[in-house]
């Protein structure tokens, strides 16, 4: 990862947490300032597009740490739970929804996470019959700041005692070495977002190449970890079929499909407010060069036949490589798209949850 941290902001109330001093130690000589707690008002309103990706802000998070992924009724959602460890990401992908999703800049790390694990544990323990699929890669990259937060090991150790839960650490980076020191591998999924090499090099700024990611995934598999992959966002571009095929060729080179718990697919979608931000922050991007329509959830998407075509094609590549269906699912798509592209459908969100829960059961 090429992004450098140049400044640390320590928000009022963070000083009381051990993680704050740990992070300061790990970051060494980087200058820091004490900051007051921010008001609720948007800081990124107006036309400022500087997200301060070179700044880390340490703060105690006052909201709920564990929340369901914000799905909508109109599309089938996987029922994933987001464990909110921080917001924003040091990578700078042109299509990233976080550019429009959060109204406050800086790489924000929630230093009270460890103290909150007790509460999270009580939520998990209160429903022993349910499988909690928990992930940290929704509002930030799970590993991009791991060398300073150590969250991957903290959370993996926490999950070890929670037999009805599985932790998915989702990343585009190769910063995974810390996790190899863990004493257990159970119910930990290390997953990568994948895209065509063309999209990676043109749109996923500061992120490692697909090959580097897959080499890291291979190492994880060799170290006994279960892996997952997310072809999300799929993006139409010149020779997209050939370019996505290259990813499968690399998967074939490096991965054992038996050690993959799931592979998701999702075509690019974005809230309309993201478009001007992308235009301003990434003037050379081509991700907006397509026909976008407003979906049933208000987000901009490709036309239905385009999405069906992409999913159908990539599903074919994946199944052709693995020789079976290694847990392919669609992220936020309709029953119709499922049926027409994957040739089956879980029918609804609980159906997809059951499908993924069964994948978990088949591994552990």
């Amino acid at each position, binding site marked *: 990862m090429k992004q450098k941290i140049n400044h640390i902001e320590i928000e009022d109330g963070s000083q009381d947490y051990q993680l704050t001093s740990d992070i300061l130690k790990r970051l060494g000589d980087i200058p820091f300032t004490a900051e007051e707690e921010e008001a609720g008002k948007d800081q990124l309103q107006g036309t400022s597009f500087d997200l301060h990706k070179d700044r880390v802000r340490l703060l105690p998070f006052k909201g709920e740490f564990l929340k369901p992924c914000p799905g909508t009724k109109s599309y089938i959602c996987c029922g994933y739970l987001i464990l909110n460890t921080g917001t924003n990401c040091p990578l700078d992908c042109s299509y990233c929804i976080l550019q429009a999703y959060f109204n406050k800049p800086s790489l924000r790390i929630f230093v009270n996470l460890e103290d909150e694990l007790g509460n999270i544990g009580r939520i998990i323990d209160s429903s022993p019959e349910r499988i909690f699929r928990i992930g940290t890669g929704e509002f930030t990259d799970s590993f991009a700041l791991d060398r300073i937060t150590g969250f991957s090991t903290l959370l993996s150790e926490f999950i070890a005692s929670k037999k009805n839960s599985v932790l998915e650490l989702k990343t585009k980076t190769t910063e995974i070495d810390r996790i190899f020191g863990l004493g257990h591998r159970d119910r930990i999924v290390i997953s990568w977002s994948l895209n065509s090499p063309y999209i990676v090099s043109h749109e996923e700024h500061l992120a490692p190449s697909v090959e580097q990611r897959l080499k890291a995934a291979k190492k994880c598999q060799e170290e006994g970890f279960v892996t997952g992959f997310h072809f999300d966002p799929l993006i139409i571009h010149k020779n997209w079929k050939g370019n996505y095929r290259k990813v499968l060729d690399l998967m074939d080179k490096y991965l054992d499909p038996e050690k993959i718990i799931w592979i998701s697919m999702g075509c690019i979608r974005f809230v309309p407010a993201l478009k001007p931000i992308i235009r301003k922050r990434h003037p050379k991007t081509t991700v907006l060069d397509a026909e976008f329509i407003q*979906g049933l959830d208000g987000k901009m998407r490709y036309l239905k036949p385009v999405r069906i075509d992409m999913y159908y094609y990539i599903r074919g590549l994946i199944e052709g490589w693995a020789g079976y269906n290694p847990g392919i699912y669609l992220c936020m798509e309709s029953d119709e798209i499922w049926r027409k592209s994957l040739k089956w459908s879980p029918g609804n969100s609980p159906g997809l949850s059951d499908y993924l829960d069964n994948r978990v059961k088949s591994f552990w």
Partner: protein
Amino acid sequence: MINYIKSEDNLPIVKISMDKFKFNRGKFCMSFDFDIDPLRNSIKKVGVINKPKIISYDGGDIEIVAGYRRILALKELKINEVSCFNLSNSGKTDFDMLLMNIHDNLHTRKLNNIEKSMVLNRLINYSKDKQIGKEFISLFAINERELETLLKIDTLPEGLKYSIVRNSISLKALENIFSIDNEKERITCLEWINKLKLNFNQQLQFIEYINDISRLNKTTIHRVLLDNDFKEMYDDKKKNTPQKARKLLHTLREKLFPNLTGYERIFARRVNKLQLPGNIKISHPRYFEAEGYKLEIEFKNNHDLKDSIDYLGKVKGLENIGDPWEKDQLK
């Protein structure tokens, strides 16, 4: 406040001959496109209640600090001499006098967007850190995004400024126009909005469509609009301006969404082929995104309903109604 009263008490009053005024806005005045009649009528009835404020320069030039409209109204009333407070030796800086003018206006009338732009740009010129105080953002009841837009309005040609004042171009549309990097391109957009009198919704659509099309085709907005489709549309004498506006957006939409509009055409053609009576309609979901299609039957009574259903059962070609891309779909 006390200082203000004291200073006004001490200001000398001078009589200025009307021909000394140049009637440009100068450094302090910010009136743009206003109706002078009410003020002129008021002065005709009760005279000038508050004396204008001026400064005089060496050589005899006069600059109006506050009261530009009052002096203009007096001129229309053929008054030859105006009593003014002279601030020349008051010790006030240009910035003090600008603030005087702003407050003189702010609390007596609503500023239009061009005037706000003039005020904000002048404030920025005087502000040491190039930041406008939050005070003025709240005084104008604008947010930071609107502030950025207002600041840029002052750079537009005079003719377009009149369109903005007369409320024929929205602030939101301007905000989007200013996101276009090239000045010439921005002016082209504004000219088309102006000449086709696009309404606020149409303005936003137009800017988004034309901007996207030019990016997709790696060409300029100007070149896109040089296309014969648009020239013919604009020159079409059989169409009035609202019809031309709709045609413009329709054509742009077809260029930006060739597949979607193609599917819409195929679907419409298939439905038209059925030659359904007026009380039976078949429609597709918006953008074909939701699953399925809609059949609507309007009927007067149970017999009418039954007749319509019986009729539908006999219609040939119903089997062709479905996804318009079907022939292109994967086998």
